[in-house]
Structures are given as structure tokens and as C-alpha cells.
């Protein structure tokens, strides 16, 4: 969940809760206000009645039948009210209600006394005999016998019950009520507006952050030197004098530092490649001259019995010079393959055929070592041929390096097999041998330049290109957008796999 969404949600939930609280408060206050005004009106009404008729109790005693009608007339203009005459114990003596109350029906006396005795009460709630409800607004006045002093004992009460419903029952209906509805709509509107506004503000505030994120993403995808030089900077947000501006500034500085270091690194790498390339180039002429000298001498002394010892020396010198020459050539080739400008000359080819040819090429050498060398082909006759677009010279060189390496370590009775097979949209080319294998610790470094694994078991033939052959294989695989894998079990053999993308 994005920060923007989280903030907007927080604002919305807070707003909605506030709105509910406000509505609840308003409803509560409204209800209380209604209760108070109702009570005051009822109380004032009773006060008027008591003031007008000082002999109510006597009237009831004289004519109990007509008294109901008298009470009804009193509340004729007071809608939603029921008037009762109670005796001192709360027993209903007369009522305006239509319901026939059981004889001797009593209301709770405590609220009656409270309403009658304490005119400062905001409102009192008591029993509604009609509805068997204890939550009605009531008013009450003491009724005494007429013409008697004020300290006469209480004869009874005039008891007024208001049952005009203030609000509908049930919480949800309350929300739909006429008071709550407009408030609800208004508050919801405000909340929504606030949320939208918040989202907009957050979006505006975090825009530099998003731009910065884009800039970082573009760098991590494209690197520092791909495309236009100013590409990452173009995405950077404008420098504002706030925290984002500071972050942008810090990021731009970091970018600058990284780029400077990167450029320095690239320059160094370029110098290294160029140095190796120049060195290899400059060594070629003296090596050519030396080789030619030694070959000339070798030719001259051929068959001269007096020169047997000298011939051995020349042969040794020649062998070493050739090794040096091969090393120099490998170094130069690797430097060339490392050049960013190097381009493959790709041709579409059935790799299986090339493997056949390579097996033939190394056949004699393998046979002389007593090693069985063969190219294996898929057993199924209609298998799709492993056709790949590749630079034939480089690819053959990679496979030849691997075969040469395998033969170097294999002993009589071992076997080397070449195979190519389809794996989805890739071709796997394998050179597998049953030689001594490679110690596990050496495997990760096998393709490092000048890392000569299996030194302990390497026969000291002095065969050239030491430590560079596999580095060249790896580089060739990379140039073909492929990779090299090595699986080796010491004592059982080694399998090197070149994985190449299929020709389209």
C-alpha cells in the first residue's frame, strides 16, 4: 500500500469516525432539549391547572364518573399527552386514556414525587400506564384538599404523561431521521472532500519523491553509461528548498560521485585492455623473429650427428617460445574479445554437425592418448536439429578449448563426449569427460583469468594458453548471449555446458 493511499485512508477513517461522533452528540443534545421543553411545557400546564382548580380531588370524589371527561377537556389542546389523577400512593384514580386500566393500578411513586417536589429538575422520566413503559416524560403536581392549609397531607397527584416520540426507535433509523440526515450528508461530503484534498496534497508533496524513485529506477535499469549521458539527471525533480530538495541534492551529488568513479573505472579498464593488447602486439614481432631464428637453426642442424645436443637445446627453446607465443596470442585475443566494439560474425548452423567435425579434428590426438572421443546425437530420428546463430570461428574455438582441456587431463581408457540438445528456447552444448574431475573449491574460479585449476594433476606438457583457455570460452559464451556451467565430481569426471539462445 502506498504512503499516499495510507494517508488518504487514515484521513477518511478519522473523518468518518468524527462524523459519527458529531451526529451522536447532536442527536443526544437534540433529544435532551426536546425532553426539557416537553417537561417544561407539561409542568407549566399542570401549574396552570392546579392554579385554576383548587378542588380537583373533591371534584373527583363527588363525581368520579364525570371526572374523566373533565380531565379530557383539560388536555383537549395538548396533543400527545395523557392526564391522570393519582392518589397519594400512586394508584390511578382517573385518566384521559382510552385504555381500561385494571383497578388499583399503580405507577412508580419516586419519579412522581421527584417531578412534583423539585421544580428545578430538567426533566423526569416515569411510567406510562398506557404503554407499560418506564421511559416517558412526565410532570406531576401535588393535589391537596381544598380550603385547607398548605401543610395538609398530600391527597394525590395530577400526573401528566407525554408520549410524543422525539426520535424514531432503532439506531439506523435515527440516522435516517430528518435531523440526522442533512448533518450526515454534509459531514460525509466534507469528509470525502477532505480525503480527496488530502490525496491531492499528498500527491503534490510526494511528486519529487516519485520522480526521484523513477530516476533511481532508470539508473538501476539502464546503468550510468547507456543511452544519453544525462538520462538519470533528466528524471530528477526540481530542487525545492525543502527536505525533498535536500534529498534530491544529496542524490545528485551521489550520482556525480558514482559517475566519476565509474568513469575512472572504465578508463582504467580501457587502459588495462589497451595495455594488454599493446603488450601482446609488441611481443609478437620479437617472438616471430625468435621463432624464425630457432626454426632456421633447427632446419640447418637437422641430420647433423655432431649437433645432437644443440638440436635438443634448440627444440627446448622453440617449445618455450611457442608457448610464450600462444600465451601472447591468447592475451591479445581476450583483450580483443573484451573490446566493447567487438562484433560477432554470426552464421546459422547445425551445432551437431560442427561437433562432429570437432570430434574428427581431435580424433587422432584422442586415439593416440587411448581416449575415446565422440560426438553424440539425440536418439530420436526426427528431433529438431540444434540450429544456432553463432560465430563459427569463435564457437569452434570455445569447444576446441574445452576438448583440448579435457584431453589434457584424461588418461588412457577415459572418454570425452560432445553433445548438443534443445532445451526450450536454448541449446545446451556439452563437453563431458570421465577424467579426474575438478576439486569443488576450484569450480567457481575455473573461468577466472590465469586461474589454473587441477594444478596438482595437470600433466606438465607445457601446453600453452595456460589459464586463459577457459576465460576465452566464457567470454565467447557471453558474446553469444549464453553462459557456461560446470558440473564436476572429483574422480568421476567433468561436464562443461554452454547454454546458447536458439536461432530465430
Amino acid at each position, binding site marked *: 500500500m502506498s504512503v499516499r493511499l495510507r494517508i488518504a485512508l487514515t484521513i477518511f477513517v478519522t473523518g468518518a469516525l468524527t462524523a459519527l461522533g458529531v451526529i451522536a452528540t447532536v442527536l443526544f443534545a437534540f433529544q435532551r432539549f426536546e425532553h426539557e421543553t416537553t417537561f417544561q411545557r407539561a409542568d407549566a400546564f399542570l401549574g396552570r391547572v392546579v392554579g385554576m382548580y383548587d378542588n380537583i380531588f373533591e371534584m373527583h370524589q363527588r363525581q368520579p364518573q364525570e371526572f374523566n371527561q373533565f380531565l379530557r377537556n383539560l388536555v383537549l389542546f395538548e396533543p400527545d399527552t395523557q392526564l391522570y389523577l393519582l392518589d397519594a400512593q400512586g394508584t390511578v384514580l382517573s385518566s384521559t386514556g382510552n385504555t381500561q386500566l385494571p383497578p388499583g393500578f399503580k405507577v412508580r411513586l419516586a419519579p412522581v414525587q421527584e417531578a412534583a417536589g423539585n421544580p428545578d429538575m430538567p426533566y423526569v422520566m416515569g411510567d406510562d400506564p398506557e404503554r407499560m413503559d418506564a421511559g416517558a416524560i412526565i410532570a406531576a403536581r401535588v393535589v391537596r384538599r381544598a380550603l385547607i392549609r398548605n401543610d395538609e397531607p398530600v391527597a394525590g397527584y395530577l400526573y401528566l404523561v407525554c408520549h410524543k416520540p422525539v426520535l424514531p426507535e432503532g439506531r439506523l433509523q435515527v440516522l435516517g431521521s430528518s435531523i440526522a440526515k442533512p448533518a450526515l450528508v454534509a459531514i460525509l461530503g466534507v469528509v470525502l472532500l477532505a480525503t480527496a484534498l488530502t490525496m491531492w496534497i499528498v500527491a503534490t508533496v510526494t511528486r519529487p519523491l516519485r520522480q526521484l524513485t523513477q530516476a533511481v529506477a532508470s539508473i538501476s535499469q539502464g546503468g550510468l553509461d547507456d543511452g544519453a549521458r544525462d538520462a538519470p539527471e533528466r528524471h530528477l525533480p526540481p530542487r525545492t528548498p525543502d527536505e525533498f530538495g535536500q534529498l534530491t541534492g544529496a542524490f545528485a551529488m551521489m550520482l556525480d560521485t558514482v559517475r566519476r568513479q565509474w568513469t575512472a573505472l572504465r578508463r582504467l579498464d580501457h587502459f588495462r585492455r589497451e595495455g594488454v593488447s599493446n603488450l601482446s*602486439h609488441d611481443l609478437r*614481432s620479437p*617472438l616471430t623473429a625468435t621463432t624464425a631464428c630457432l626454426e632456421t637453426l633447427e632446419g640447418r642442424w637437422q641430420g647433423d650427428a655432431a649437433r645432437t645436443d644443440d638440436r635438443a637445446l634448440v627444440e627446448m627453446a622453440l617449445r618455450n617460445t611457442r608457448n610464450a607465443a600462444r600465451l601472447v596470442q591468447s592475451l591479445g585475443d581476450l583483450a580483443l574479445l573484451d573490446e566493447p566494439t567487438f562484433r560477432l*560474425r554470426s552464421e546459422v*548452423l547445425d551445432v551437431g554437425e560442427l561437433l562432429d567435425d570437432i570430434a574428427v579434428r581431435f580424433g587422432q590426438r584422442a586415439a593416440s592418448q587411448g581416449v575415446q572421443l565422440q560426438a553424440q546425437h539425440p536418439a530420436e530420428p526426427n528431433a529438431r536439429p540444434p540450429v544456432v546463430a553463432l560465430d563459427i570461428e569463435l564457437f569452434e574455438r570455445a569447444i576446441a578449448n574445452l576438448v583440448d582441456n579435457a584431453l589434457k587431463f584424461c588418461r588412457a581408457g577415459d572418454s570425452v563426449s560432445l553433445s548438443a540438445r534443445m532445451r526450450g528456447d536454448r541449446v545446451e552444448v556439452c563437453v563431458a569427460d570421465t577424467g579426474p574431475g575438478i576439486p569443488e573449491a576450484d569450480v567457481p574460479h575455473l573461468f577466472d583469468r590465469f586461474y589454473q585449476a587441477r594444478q596438482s594433476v595437470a600433466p606438465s606438457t607445457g601446453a600453452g594458453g595456460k589459464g586463459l583457455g577457459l576465460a576465452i570460452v566464457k567470454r565467447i559464451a557471453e558474446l553469444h548471449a549464453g553462459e557456461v556451467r560446470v558440473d564436476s565430481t572429483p574422480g568421476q569426471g567433468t561436464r562443461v555446458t554452454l547454454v546458447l539462445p536458439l536461432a530465430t
Partner: protein
Amino acid sequence: MAATILVAEDQADIRDLLVMNLRSANYDVHAVADGTAALASQNERASDLLILDLMMPGMDGLEVCKALRARGRTTPILMLTAKSTELDRVLGLELGADDYLTKPFSLAELLARVKALLRRADVQRAAQSDLQGQPSPIRNGDLEIAPSKRSVRYQGVALDCTALEFDLLLHFAQHPGHVFSRSQLLDAVWGYTHDGYEHTVTTHINRLRAKLEADPMRPQLILTVRGAGYKMREAPP
């Protein structure tokens, strides 16, 4: 009569060694130290073969090559280069050099290349002189090769081949049904056997197939013989 060879090499040691060894191989050798002198000496007297160093002060090997070819000279040229870059190889061959050797090379290999280049030039001269003698074209099914005109027709369509592609095809056509390994083809067509150049054969067979075959991945004319090499399919009599 001994073949005449011109060596143009700016490094005295290598030049002397080349001259010494070529002379002991019974060639008539003349040596110069730069491209300008090489071109001048060719104006005086044309050699049978040129050995040019690619990198020389003043006029380099490529420029000499270009200048000679521009004058219509077909003298075989062997280019020596200290750079093993693919680019140089292609440039050398495209600009008219017939072969190249990367330093450091072995003398034996150089001598083999020289011999092969001279032999090829002889064969071509012979073909040229045969032109009057109307040599019979070689036929194999739909394939028709006229060695004198160096032209190829397959299924009635004329094919455009490079010199080496033509020589390779001609060699196959002269021995239909015969299986050749890559090193045998290298020896017979290119004229030298040197480990590490077999890929050249693969490349040329691949290109010939692309020109000749309807589906180069399922060839019908130049067939692969697993574990042995390549052969041309024999047409039914």
C-alpha cells in the same frame, strides 16, 4: 625457373629471416622495408608473389594491396599481421590479399602458404590458357561447373561464388560421392594443413549450402557424413 617473391617488412630481423629461409627454399627473393619501395619494385618487375607486412611506416600493406589491385594485378599476396583481429583478417581478404598469417607464425607454415599460393596461381594460369583449349565443363546432376569461366549453374540458375567457394565446390564436383574431412579439404582447396583453421571450411560449406540448398539445414547436395566429413551427392546416372 625459380618463382620470384617480394618481401616488404619494416622489421629488419624478420625481413632477413624471411629472405634467408625463402632463399634456402629456392625462391628468388627480393626484400624492401616499406610499402612505397614495394610498389616501386613491382613497377620495375612484377614478382610471382608478394609477402606484405600489414603495419609499415608510410604506405602500409593494405594500401600496397589496394594500389596493385587497382592496377589490375592479380599477383598473389600473403599478408603478415601482428593484430589477430577479425577485422584485419576480413579487411585483408576483402581488399585483395589472398591469404594472411598472424604473427607469431612458424616458418614451416609460412613456407606452406607460399607454396600453396604459388600453386593456386599456377592452376589459375593453366585454366586461363586452357580457355583456348575448350575444357569440358563438369556436370553432376543439376550442377554444372565451367572451370575455365569459373562459373557455376545449379538447377539452371547461375550462382555467384567467391574464389574459395568456387574452388571448394569444384573440388567436391570433381570427386562426387567421395568423403572429405575438413582438414583434407583445407589441404586440397586452401593448400595448407594447419590446426586451428578448420572452421574456415565449415564457414565456406555453410555459405555454399545457403546459396545452393532450398533448406540449408537439410542439405541435398553437399551432405554431411557423420564422424567423417562431407561429400557431394552423386547424381543418378
